[in-house]
């Protein structure tokens, strides 16, 4: 069982790493094409290791934005890593070295890989396999792209921009079986999309946890409706007591029999 899960993990992580390497190559090429020296995107990728903020920084600098406001905008984009660290910090393992090194590997992909495998207790392996693989592949991709320059094709032609959201959606789906989590996620996503046209980049996503308020309100509303204890709902107890990613939903049996992911 564990062996099969490990093989699945390696295969899934390799796929994401491969896609990220191609996006990294595209980033390196775009950065050099925008007039930056070859070392700049390479150093940026090693030191920052955050794709969205790296693309934004190069885009803003190329557009002539002042350096200070460009860096502030990128910090805003990376602010989401703060709540990530509190949510999945246990996946790094114990000990200072693991925490200090692992912190640098906290990105969307490693967080979602670890969250998806927390119910099976494999979240540490998932975090480190995905994190180390991504760090190596992303930086090699950027290096290759920076040197290859204009010969790197536009990754949008391969649809890689659609692959990344699909990765996240596939891996958060099991957690969405928990009703408050699902309400919070849907409200947070709606809030981010709704505000994206008017707010500066990064801020809409950071607002998403406010969607949890919608989840809480939905939950208390449900309790109130069923509170006279005429029909003690089995769902209410589950909502209050269950861990949000391992609540056994109505179809939990069929999913776990597949080995899960």
């Amino acid at each position, binding site marked *: 069982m564990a062996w099969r899960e490990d093989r699945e993990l390696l295969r899934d992580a390799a796929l994401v790493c491969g896609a990220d390497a191609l996006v990294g190559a595209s980033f390196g090429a775009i950065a050099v094409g925008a007039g930056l020296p070859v070392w700049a995107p390479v150093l940026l990728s090693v030191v920052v290791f955050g794709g969205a*903020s790296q693309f934004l920084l190069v885009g803003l600098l190329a557009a002539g934005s002042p*350096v200070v406001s460009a*860096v502030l905008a990128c910090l805003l984009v990376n*602010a989401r890593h703060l709540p990530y*660290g509190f949510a999945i910090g246990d996946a790094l393992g114990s000990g200072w070295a693991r925490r200090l090194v692992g912190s640098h590997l906290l990105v969307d992909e490693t967080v979602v890989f670890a969250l998806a495998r927390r119910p099976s207790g494999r979240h540490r392996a998932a975090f480190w396999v995905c994190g180390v693989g991504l760090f190596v592949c992303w930086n090699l991709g950027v290096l290759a792209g920076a040197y290859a320059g204009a010969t790197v094709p536009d990754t949008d032609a391969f649809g890689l921009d659609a692959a990344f959201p699909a990765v996240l959606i596939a891996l958060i789906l099991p957690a969405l079986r928990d009703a408050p989590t699902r309400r*919070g996620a849907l409200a947070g996503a709606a809030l981010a999309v709704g505000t994206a046209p008017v707010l500066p980049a990064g801020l809409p996503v*950071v607002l998403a*946890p406010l969607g949890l308020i919608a989840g809480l309100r939905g939950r208390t509303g449900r309790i109130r409706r069923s509170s006279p204890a005429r029909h003690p709902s089995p769902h209410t107890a589950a909502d209050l007591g269950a861990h949000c990613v391992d609540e056994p939903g109505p179809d939990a049996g069929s999913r776990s029999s597949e080995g899960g992911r």
Partner: protein
Amino acid sequence: MIGTPALLVATAVLGVGTYACRAAGPLLRSRVTLPASVERLTTRAAVALLAAVAATGTLIVGHHFAGPARLVGVSVGALLAWRRTPFAVVVVAAAVTTALLRAAGVS
């Protein structure tokens, strides 16, 4: 477009600031044991953030609609994921759908 010292400082500030965001949680967690209720809340917050990253990544480029090709590709992937299709198929199907639409002239 920008001098080497400014570029180095920008990289350093962004790197340190980003690392501080990332390290705060893991380092503080080693000092305190989070109650189950807080643990649940932080997990829900992370899922909401990831959902928001996925949603804006599907729909928005800059401040505008990303175009139908990406939306359709991600939707195909999401539908397959919901139908419990293996992860690799979900990801490849999303990319291939979008790539084919673009090849057909849909942006």
